[in-house]
């Protein structure tokens, strides 16, 4: 291939990318307009339905009621307080479980025997709904924040471990043979092939684990807690304050989206070679 040929290739690749970006920008804008319009329509219909008496505001809540309740909870500082409590416990448990789980899963690559022996236990733990452990964990660690951290930890650890370990099994044997032919030690094979090749798997476990950590956290708060969005929802539900329930639910959605975006941004940084792929 001549240099000139290579050059045209590069230029073409560049212009294609630009076109795609423009296209992506335009579709994103129209998509967002449609999303906003759809959401606004639902809110308006809901409020109109309540005003006309077609929708029971006591059982369903109403947009105006939700806004009022949100304003009250913001002003009293309770919403911030509960959000901080939920987010901090979730994030701590999530990070602890996902990081330690991934590390454990990766390290199992070194010992197939260990992996084989613990495999059924891991599968059993993975199948178990982790929230079933909540009463025990709350008895052991109290109803404060620490028990919620532990719950989120338990909910994320096994998923991360199993995913990372499976990831180490998907590695092309030829890559490992190549390293060996270059005279690499097992530790070098691990650090230069196994760990980076498994990274996309680990990232996907992190993505899943945001959801699992939140489920465990909210479940734990339902059972016993002194603060948090789960507690807000649970208490308001018992008092038939549907508007406050909605405020908690909407806040949780926002929390989930923010956490997901953060993990995605970190993933982009960690997987630069996967950018620019279609």
């Amino acid at each position, binding site marked *: *291939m001549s240099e000139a040929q290579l050059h045209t290739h590069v230029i073409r690749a560049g212009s294609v990318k630009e076109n795609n970006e423009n296209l992506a920008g335009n579709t994103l804008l129209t998509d967002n307009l449609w999303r906003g319009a759809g959401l606004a329509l639902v809110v308006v219909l809901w409020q109109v339905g309540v005003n006309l008496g077609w929708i029971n505001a006591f059982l369903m809540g109403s947009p105006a009621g939700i806004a009022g309740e949100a304003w009250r909870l913001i002003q009293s500082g309770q919403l911030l307080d509960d959000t901080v409590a939920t987010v901090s416990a979730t994030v701590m448990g999530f990070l602890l479980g996902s990081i330690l789980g991934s590390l454990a899963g990766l390290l199992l690559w070194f010992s197939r025997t260990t992996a084989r022996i613990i495999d059924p236990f891991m599968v059993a733990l993975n199948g178990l709904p982790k929230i079933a452990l909540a009463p025990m964990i709350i008895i052991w660690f109290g109803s404060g924040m620490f028990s919620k951290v532990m719950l989120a930890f338990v909910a994320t650890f096994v998923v991360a471990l199993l995913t990372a370990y499976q990831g180490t099994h998907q590695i092309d044997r030829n890559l490992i043979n190549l390293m060996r032919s270059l005279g690499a030690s097992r530790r070098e094979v691990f650090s230069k092939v196994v760990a980076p090749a498994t990274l996309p798997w680990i990232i996907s476990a992190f993505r899943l684990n945001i959801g699992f950590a939140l489920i465990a956290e909210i479940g734990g708060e339902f059972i016993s807690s002194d603060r948090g969005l789960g507690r807000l929802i649970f208490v308001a539900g018992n008092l038939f304050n549907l508007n406050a329930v909605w405020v908690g639910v909407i806040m949780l959605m926002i929390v989930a989206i923010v956490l997901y975006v953060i993990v995605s941004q970190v993933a982009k940084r960690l997987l630069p070679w996967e950018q620019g792929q279609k």
Partner: protein
Amino acid sequence: MNASIAHSATLAARTTDSLQLLQSVISLDEVKKTFSSSGGESVDVIEDITLDIKQEEFVSIVGPSGCGKSTMFNIISGLLEPSAGTITLRGHDPKRGARIGYMLQRDLLFPWRTIIDNVCLGLEVQGIPKARRYEVAHDYLARYGLADFAKQYPNTLSGGMRQRVALIRTLITEPDLILLDEPFSALDYQTRLVLEEEIVSILKDAHKTVVLITHDIGEAISMSDRVAVMTQRPTSVKKIYDVGLSRELGSCLKARSDVRYQTFFDSIWNDLDIQISGGAS
């Protein structure tokens, strides 16, 4: 620049040194390989391979499909032990593939490494400091027209370019023997012809000894000094042709248009005894 001078100096020293000691780079002497299946039966894959490959020679091994080419590859590269016979690399027992560089059908570039870091892989494993290995790698990339791609990831390169990077990654560790296992079979025909030409000239410039394992007769004739034709399984060497067209004419493409090319092609084709099994047997 300093580094590259030192680099070629060691290359030169090694070449003269080895020329004085031995001519033969790799010898296979009555190599045999038998696999035992789980049922206790044993399957003979390689019956007898005796082959002596000299310094700077380009030898192709051609065989019908299923003749145990990949077993041969694994034995030569030191990933498998032969069941009987000996294999010596520069007069020594090749210990686990040391000093053999290989290139496969798939380039096996690490997607998470930039081109330059892929090229540096062997030097990194050898424990050469980063500044030094980048210097050497830049030199190689510049020589083969890939300097502009040093910071890119492999997925942005075409198949042919990726294979060139894979070859440079192999060359940079200065192996005694380069083993090519169907390196072009995933590429389209035009890229393949261009790359054959390029790889032969790169390897000749670097004074490398090469073994090419392939099922492509044309590729073997156009690139090689000698072509060893294998039998069906259990495999042995059926015949060895002294081709040398590309060396004589200085180009693989010229070799393909030489009158002798077709003659070699026909006799190798006949040796392979390939039958299109339509019905019985």
